[in-house]
């Protein structure tokens, strides 16, 4: 007791402060809230480090892993299909993420104009995101874009010839990109919440000063919403780099036609479980982590230029 008071006079000056044992309840509830994460973590942490080790080995699932150093990483650079999977994933990400964020922001702004029955519209627009990665939706997508599907029927109305959206290597990825753009619901809901945070007095003041809608959007909405845009951008980039289900279901697990939907994670899966190259697959997983970390880091650097925080 004396030791404490010597070390920390503030304690003796504040006799009402509760003793240390009484403090944790607050902490405890905090830990309770993240308990599910800890439990999940226990299942992730071992595979996490195991895969790091396996990335440096030649491991075929059946025999003991064999240390080969950086060979797996070197092999990626001479693997044409690996490059193809990087290309597919990059095109998919860099085309669909900006477009889906733009769509999300656009719809959020429309819904923010005080429409009646907002929750209903919000739910309708959010629905596709709930289903976006689901097997049923991807299969449905195949029918919509099928040779005799409604998209071709619609185009046929304008005299455009039938396009084989799903089996032509030139169009298959486009079809999946459109699917991704359509599932803009979760960033939209976050944008909507962000838009509601912007005080209406800014717009009133701007309107009095004679700013038109476009100027208001550029000078008020975008800067004040920039932290939200940044958050959505990072989220979408990361999840888009990790796309698997869409490619797997769309191509029946093959990444076809002609590897045009061979997403990075799909190729990783095929290497690990079909070709028994689990060491190579682990190395690919870590390479993806590096790629994602690099793009996230780059975005944080660039963010200094365009993201404005309130304080």
């Amino acid at each position: 007791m004396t030791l404490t008071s010597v070390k920390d006079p503030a304690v003796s000056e504040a006799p009402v402060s509760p003793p240390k044992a009484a403090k944790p309840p607050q902490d405890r509830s905090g830990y309770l809230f993240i308990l599910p994460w800890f439990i999940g973590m226990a299942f992730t942490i071992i595979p996490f480090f195991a895969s790091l080790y396996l990335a440096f080995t030649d491991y075929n699932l059946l025999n003991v892993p064999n240390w080969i150093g950086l060979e797996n990483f070197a092999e990626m650079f001479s693997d044409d299909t690996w490059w193809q999977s990087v290309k597919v994933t990059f095109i998919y990400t860099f085309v669909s993420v900006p477009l889906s964020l733009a769509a999300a922001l656009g719809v959020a702004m429309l819904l923010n104009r005080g429409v009646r029955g907002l929750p209903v519209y919000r739910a309708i627009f959010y629905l596709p995101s709930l289903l976006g990665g689901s097997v049923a939706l991807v299969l449905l997508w195949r029918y919509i874009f099928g040779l005799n599907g409604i998209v071709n029927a619609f185009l046929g109305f304008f005299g455009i010839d039938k396009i084989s959206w799903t089996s032509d290597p030139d169009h298959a990825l486009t079809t999946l990109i459109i699917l991704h753009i359509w599932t803009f619901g979760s960033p939209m809901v976050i944008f909507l919440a962000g838009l509601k945070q912007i005080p209406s007095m800014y717009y009133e003041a701007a309107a009095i000063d004679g700013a038109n809608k476009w100027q208001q959007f550029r000078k008020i909405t975008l800067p004040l919403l920039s932290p939200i845009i940044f958050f959505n951008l990072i989220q979408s980039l990361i999840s888009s780099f990790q796309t698997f289900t869409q490619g797997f279901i769309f191509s029946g697990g093959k990444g076809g036609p002609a590897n045009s939907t061979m997403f990075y994670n799909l190729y990783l899966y095929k290497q690990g479980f079909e070709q028994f190259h689990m060491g190579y697959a682990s190395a690919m997983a870590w390479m993806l982590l590096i790629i994602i970390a690099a793009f996230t880091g780059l975005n944080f650097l660039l963010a200094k230029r365009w993201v404005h925080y309130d304080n």
Partner: protein
Amino acid sequence: MLRTAGLTGLGLAVAACGRGFGGGGSEAASGKIELNMVWWGDAFRAQKTQAALDLFMKANPGITVNTEYQDSGPYKDKLATRFAAGNPPDLMMMRMDSLREYADRKSLLNLNDHTGIVDTTNLSQAAASLTKVGDAVYGIPSGLNAIGYIVNKTIIDQYGVTIPDGATWTWQDLATFAKEITDKSGKKVYGTLVDPATLANLVVYVSQQGEDLFTADGKFGVSEATLTKWFQMFEDMRKEGGFPPAGFVETIGSSPDQSYIAKGSIASQIIPSNGFLGYNKVSGGNLVLLGIPGEATAKRRGTNIGTPALWSIAAASKHPKEALQLLDFLINDVEANKAMGTTRGVPASTVVADAIKPTLEKDDQVATDYLIGLQKQTLVAVPPYPKGASGIQDELTAVAPEVEHGRLTPAEAAKKVIEAATKALSQ
């Protein structure tokens, strides 16, 4: 569908954990020996398999057999994972194209080291030769099949086209036949659809040209010229009209009811012979089963008797003796095979095949006759695919649509396949 299968797998995995780790089976409280047996298939096959297993358990009261089944895709992943986790099943359906991935790594029981329990004397020559890896035998075919050619007679009759002689027709005859159907139907029905990317189709053509898909020392044995001709043949048919235009094929499912012959937009195609009943059911019931084109005029026979899968036993099984007993039962017991029918193909034992034939449905009898007939002929056997063969299948699947859409010439595609094959087999 896939997600359901995955969830089922998860449930089963949890159940498997509950039974305790190691070996897959274990002694239950009652002192009974538990065997774990896994296979892929559908509910229909599950019903038939369970009926056979019930007979086994009745005859062997000391043994309980637990089964798990899934779709073939998730099955493959699950099996690999169970082996990796040191918890393999006792008896399993082993894909022929994965056989050497497991066998070469000493994960499967060599049946030659455990003779005396499984009676192999009645296996046909073709069945016995299928499973040899060097001097070892890592399983017994769960059923035999071969590819055959089906023609929808209703459509042919409707447009007044005559069916060629299935024993002597050539690939050129197929092209002429297919074009005639397309022309006479005004493109309502296309004459034929053969997937150039399916290894089981390619291997027949390759053998007809006098080449082996894989050489004795495990190399890719197909020449660039043969592969080019293979791709060119279908592109020519596409140009003439016998083959549907580029982009026509969209279905990803491989079940008979998803096929274009079931939809009536294709008049003929290649199928695995054990699928004849299924295809006939969904295509109006008037299919005719022919041989593969080119067999009579080729340098040598191309059609080969194969098996989609073996019954194999894990080397790490804790109850190899009981697993072998079960294997013997599945291969040689007539009643068990009557219960199972030919869902996995024609039984590998000729005695069993003859005994169950009268009990089969008419369409299954047609397919069985086709296979029994083939077994009496001199065919060129195809040994188990070497490790890395799935890489070749992947490359074929990747280049075929590029040829279809004119992004690669047949010669360029052939070159790419050979490059990929050489690389896949050297790893």
